[in-house]
């Protein structure tokens, strides 16, 4: 049988994916130095009027896939 993708390795990939997106479009600014990944996900979900869960859910993932402008959404 195909080897089951270990759930933790998928979530590692997801974490890297969302972190790369946040670093690009919601970069850590002076005032957000100490935010946790969960808080940073919430910031993105608030901007896009998504359900604010702090977790990478389906609608957040869908938003990340949309073609877009390369300029960050939060300016320093």
């Amino acid at each position, binding site marked *: 049988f195909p080897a089951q993708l270990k759930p933790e390795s998928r979530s590692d990939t997801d974490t890297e994916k969302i972190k790369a997106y946040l670093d690009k*479009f919601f970069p850590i600014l002076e005032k957000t130095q100490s935010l946790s990944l969960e808080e940073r996900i919430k910031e993105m979900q608030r*901007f*896009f*009027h998504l359900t604010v869960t702090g977790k990478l859910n389906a609608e957040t993932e869908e*938003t990340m896939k*949309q*073609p*877009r*402008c*390369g*300029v*960050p*959404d*939060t*300016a*320093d």
Partner: protein
Amino acid sequence: YKTFPGNPRWKRTHLTYKIVNYTPDLPQKKVDDAIRRAFMVWSDVTPLQFRRVFKTHADIVIRFARREHGDGQPFDGRGAVLAHAFYPGEGIGGDAHFDDDERWSEVNQEVNLFLVAAHEFGHSLGLGHSNVRGALMYPSYSYVNPATFRLPEDDRRRIQKLYGTKSS
């Protein structure tokens, strides 16, 4: 989310632009026209005026490029990031770059050049992204018919806050 840090804006209303290269996806004349109409989106509601130059210095330089293209912000191949621009200032300030790994079009297929250019020129003039759905300056791309395109209220209000209204 509304404007760039320090609200950079051009200190004059007569600006120049230069198209330094073209995408192979469209006839050059169609690219010229899409760019011209994209600037008109902003000059129609403000005192701004845009003049195209060909060889001399331009405030806004427009370029099609792939992957790494000299500004430290490489494009990412087809999909995802379509284009980016720099807010007003000397040098690279105001410039707009379009990812030539996209398929640029003038209709509702692939990526509409007029719509993306109008968005990017909003950055070139000092606007940051808006989180108002339907705003031209919303970060994600969505198609609307260019023939009936009207600048949404949120974008018009924000650009007039920077440069005033057409009459002024």
